[in-house]
């Protein structure tokens, strides 16, 4: 289980910005979210650190999906 945050166009595509989702790992969470969080340049951050592989999640985990960034 994890608190899931979406940013930028991902939040628009999903229709939500924040939601609690049941998932024991980052890969399970990705599978649950499907196409929404797939695509070039989309990164995941767990507890505010970018994670490239898989990782176990707890109820306290905060998972953010970040589309390609564009500041300034």
């Amino acid at each position, binding site marked *: 289980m994890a608190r899931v945050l979406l*940013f*930028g*166009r991902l939040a*628009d595509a999903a229709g939500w910005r924040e939601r609690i989702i049941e998932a024991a790992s980052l890969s399970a969470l990705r599978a649950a979210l499907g196409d929404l969080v797939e695509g070039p340049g989309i990164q995941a951050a767990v507890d*505010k650190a970018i994670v490239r592989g898989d990782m176990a999640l707890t109820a306290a985990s905060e998972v*953010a999906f970040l589309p390609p*960034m*564009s*500041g*300034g």
Partner: protein
Amino acid sequence: MSVFLQTEPFDPGALLTAFSVGRSETGAVVSFTGLARAEAGATTTLELDAYPGFTDAEIGRIAQAAAERFGLDDLLIVHRTGPIAPGEAIVFVATAAAHRRAAFEACDHLMDYLKSRAPFWKKERGPAGERWIEPTAADLADASRWDTKETS
């Protein structure tokens, strides 16, 4: 060294004045101000999404690295989030160094980073609807200019 994210508009000149006063060993202050463009009426609002606690930490990390790499006396980054009207400032970066080359390069480098790699998401709203802006090929090429130098 300071990094601020804020939803309120700011005056770049007031920031530059505060940043420049009382420096007796700084020879060079470079500032960059990014303004929201109207695109001849095509854009009525820009909206910047950020991830509090992540975006500011990432920018702080890059700012610290830039301060060391370029030997800066000081630097300031102020970045708007939320809705921004055309003509308003989106970002302000000021760098202070003994000599101008370091101040210019550090400011240029920080802007390249902020434009393409900083954790912001930018949406343009206009009469034709809204669209998310992603870094251009030029932005990515600009940012990558600094990568090869990082090990030298």
